[in-house]
């Protein structure tokens, strides 16, 4: 039974680890400026934990193979060195890992969440609702109209609750259901929710940030590749959670300018 | 093998079992544990109160001098009832059952007076327009936090009065011992202590300043 256990455990361990190693299912290619630091951090964590996984499971398997009770009255033996060895191993190895990860990780986290957006960042306002994202560009005047919750209506397309009748900056605001941005341009999103908690998740951008009702949260990033990507909601927001998504389209600057002009003309 | 032979391998003198390790009988230990847990609950509600208050730009400070004076009287009554509680426990320890029951009754009276003053205060505020969900002065959360926090405390006082009543009757009939009186005293002092946090946080910090 011990040998069988050892074989099963070894097979499970090796199969599990090699699927990771072969990248059969993996993160998509990163398209953000801050992403490579996160990916590197991920790689280092995977190396560390992968080593721990293999050593722990395989030595367990080996001991199971070796130390079954054969009914021969063999003496039990203590692990050489006793608990000191295991404690020191755990403290040193795990402690080093923690120190390394904390220092590197702190930088990666800071570049996303602590550093302010660059001053030339393009500002886009994002509102989440059950179950869609809407994006607002300031329009030619460069100013956003004020948001009036009581004016919000999905029926007439006033998703942000603008008041163009009385509020002149609101008149040229461009409201769309997809996020279109220029490549290599810092983007600042101010994200807020109309109803419950949502989350803004773009895998390729390595960005995930909750929408918190009652709070406006800044998010900034720079996309380095053009293409079309999916924005999905990752915070349980109700029955349509699974179908809450939008597209992110990263365009070359000239195409983006054309697109923006076309929208403003509508 | 006699009991004195029992030694640990390390040679320490052994624990003889049956004896209460911290000289605390189970019931008293149970009450202490309840108090630990309940103070965490109060702590959570107080932290909630502080959190919401700090997060609200328009937190009202509606308590006039009359409210503060009323609160001070309530505090005095509750503190006095703690003193009578001490006397009740003392009397119970010395076997003076009748005296102990009298002191317990005085403590209960203090609790009842506290409740009455408190409810009068509530009614006055409700009359001025304070509700769970709105008030005329500012953030609607004030009423919610005020009623929840003081209501939780008032419930504790009321439960305490009933509890003391049961202990007093049981003690007179010989069903309960002086230990039970002491344990009920622990609860009562705890409720008293909690008020010492509620009163400054809710009343004094929300006094109307002019």
């Amino acid at each position: 039974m011990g040998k069988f256990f050892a074989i099963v455990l070894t097979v499970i361990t090796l199969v599990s680890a090699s699927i990771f190693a072969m990248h059969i299912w993996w993160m998509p290619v990163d398209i953000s400026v801050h992403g490579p630091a996160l990916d590197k951090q991920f790689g280092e964590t995977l190396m560390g934990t992968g080593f721990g996984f293999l050593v722990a499971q395989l030595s367990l398997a080996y001991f199971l193979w070796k130390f079954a009770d054969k009914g021969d009255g063999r003496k039990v033996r203590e692990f050489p060195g006793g608990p000191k060895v295991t404690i020191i191993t755990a403290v040193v190895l795990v402690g080093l890992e923690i120190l390394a990860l904390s220092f590197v990780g702190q930088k990666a986290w800071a570049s996303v969440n602590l550093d302010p957006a660059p001053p030339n960042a393009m500002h886009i306002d994002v509102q989440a609702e059950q179950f869609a994202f809407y994006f607002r560009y300031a329009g030619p005047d460069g100013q956003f109209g004020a948001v009036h919750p009581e004016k919000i209506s999905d029926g007439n397309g006033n998703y942000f609750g603008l008041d163009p009748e009385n509020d002149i900056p609101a008149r040229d605001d461009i409201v769309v259901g997809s996020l279109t941005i220029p490549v290599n341009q810092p983007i600042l999103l101010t994200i807020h929710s109309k109803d419950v908690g949502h989350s803004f998740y773009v895998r390729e951008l390595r960005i995930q940030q909750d929408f918190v009702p009652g709070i406006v949260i800044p998010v900034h990033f720079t996309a380095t590749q053009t293409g079309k990507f999916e924005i999905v909601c990752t915070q349980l927001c109700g029955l349509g959670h699974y179908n809450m998504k939008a597209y992110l389209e990263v365009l070359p600057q000239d195409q983006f300018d054309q697109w923006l002009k076309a929208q403003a003309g509508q | 093998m006699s009991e004195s032979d029992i030694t640990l391998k390390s040679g320490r003198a052994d624990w003889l079992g049956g004896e209460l390790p911290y000289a605390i009988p189970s019931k008293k230990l149970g009450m202490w544990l309840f108090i630990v847990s309940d103070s965490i609950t109060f702590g959570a509600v107080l932290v909630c109160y502080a959190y919401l208050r700090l997060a609200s730009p328009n937190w009202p400070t509606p308590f006039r001098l009359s409210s503060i004076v009323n609160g001070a009287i309530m505090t005095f009554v509750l503190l006095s009832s703690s003193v009578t509680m001490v006397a009740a426990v003392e009397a119970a320890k010395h076997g003076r059952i009748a005296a102990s029951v009298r002191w317990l009754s005085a403590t209960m009276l203090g609790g009842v007076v506290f409740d009455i003053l408190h409810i009068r205060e509530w009614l006055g505020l409700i009359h001025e327009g304070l509700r769970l969900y709105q008030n005329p002065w500012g953030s609607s959360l004030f009423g919610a936090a005020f009623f929840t926090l003081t209501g939780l405390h008032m419930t504790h006082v009321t439960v305490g009065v009933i509890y003391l009543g049961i202990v007093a009757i049981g003690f007179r009939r010989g069903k309960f011992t002086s230990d039970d009186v002491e344990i009920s005293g622990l609860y009562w002092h705890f409720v008293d202590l909690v008020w010492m946090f509620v009163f400054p946080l809710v009343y004094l910090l929300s006094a109307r300043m002019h």
Partner: protein
Amino acid sequence: MHDTSDQAAVHHHAPPKGFLWTHVFSLDHKVIGKQYYFLSLAAVVIGMVLSWIMRFHLAWAAAAIPGLQHLSQVGAPGGIITPEYYLSLLTLHGTLMVFFVLTTAPQAGFGNYFLPIQIGAEDMAFPRLNMLSFWVTFVGFVTLVSTLFISDGPPISGWTAYAPLSALGNDAGPGLGRGQILWVISIGIFCIGSLLGALNFIATTLDLRCKGMTLARMPYTVWAWFITAVLGLLAFAVLLPACVLLVLDHVGGTSFFIPGGLVLSDKLQPHSGGSTLLWQHMFWFFGHPEVYIAIIPGIGITSHILASTARKPLLGGSRVLVGCMVAIAFLSFTVWGHHMFISGMNPFSSLLFSVPTLIITIPASIISLNWIATVFGARLRFHTPGLFAIGFISVFVTGGLSGFFLAQPSLDIYLHATYFVVGHFHMVMGVAAIFGMFAGTYFWFPKMFGRMMNETMGKIHFWVTFIGVYCIFMPMHYIGLAGNVRRYSAFVDDYLIPLIPVHKFITIAAFVTGAAQLLFLFNLFWSMYRGKKAEENPWDSTTLEWTIPSPPPFDNFGGRHPIVYHDPYELGVEGAKGDYVMQDSPEKLAQS
């Protein structure tokens, strides 16, 4: 000697008469322990069936499940599951499993039955309170399950019930009105039951130990139950007021967790001023210790059984194990923010919360390494409880390691709310804790029911389950890495559609593993009546529960007052009769 009249009063209740008082409203900790166990068993069966339905839907979203419309015409019209019904099932599955299984069976179930016996006591410190905690918990369970049968259906806000989704009533979605209120009330009731239980456990452990049972001589399990009780006493005390505030938001018109200016279903909500993050803080302040409330009893049970299986005490003994468990318990109150890295709280605090989160892996690693090192040089007896205890080590290590990723805020950006998280917590908290329960069941069944469980069925159960859980939960890590978001009732995103075959694999694995659980259930009930009669000490173990008849008499020790002479795991002892020395055996040990 101090006054012991108090304890005498506690213990001299006579055996009750009549079915009602012996089996329903019994004050006997053994009956109450069994009641808790069977309550959890009911909850785990419901929770498992719900997970099958969910797994089926995730793999074949468009397919009808014949007959399901009879359970809920609205939730499954024509047998096809609606998105909200999926979320209802998800919410109930999570709530049942976390509260009524993981928190209930290992602690309140086995703990109630064996803690007094293992410390040589005749009952818990407060038998009436004990009975009360069970029936309070039972009412909470019935309240929760009743949401399946009300017209609104169960709530859809998940076991975490994030506000404001959980606070706004039906405008936020189906099931969030009455269903959500019942859910909150059920959890509030559960908190009360758990608080009473925790209080009782602590008082019992401190006050009712028999002669010679020093703290150092308490079995690993007693320590685990004791530490868990301390955690419960502190953690549930915070969830309880949180539940009260959430109910007030529903029925009192308050806005504790609801900010102003929200528009749901085209209606401007009449709330203002509250904070949604406040709920998350209160919930996770409870929620993280809760994770350890679920797993620490499992750690204790595994250590207890591993010692018996390996014929040697744990490497480092009680001191290292208990030190690590205490460290974990203490740290667990400082790490709740790691559930909220991307929640919009101050990003500096994310860094602060990540440090204790990473540090908590040190005591967990020490425990794991000590288990593995204990197997070294052992004389392993591969009986079913031993297999499950060893399986526990493997899944605990696997599940724990993925925590390294999630503990870092910078990696959590990508992995948060993906199946990577689902795989992680199912492995480390769900599967590991359940392995602890299985190990405990096979190990203590002879004591509880006086008969042995069938070993062949047990071994089949173990192998299918062990391989099965890896087939279910490892792939979840992979698809999580590919960005597969959790709590989706169907996969309609362009990048998720190619992952559906993996979900089909997981679903099939889940059904196969589920079938093995049916075998376990059959074994459990069959052995209760048909199993081989159990001896007093079938596993050659040393702790006090193996010194009394199987099943134990009403007062556990039959009027005898046990005296403890030894550490709890004198196994593999040279020169002893057998290879072990019972804790209450006066036999002297050769100094080693």
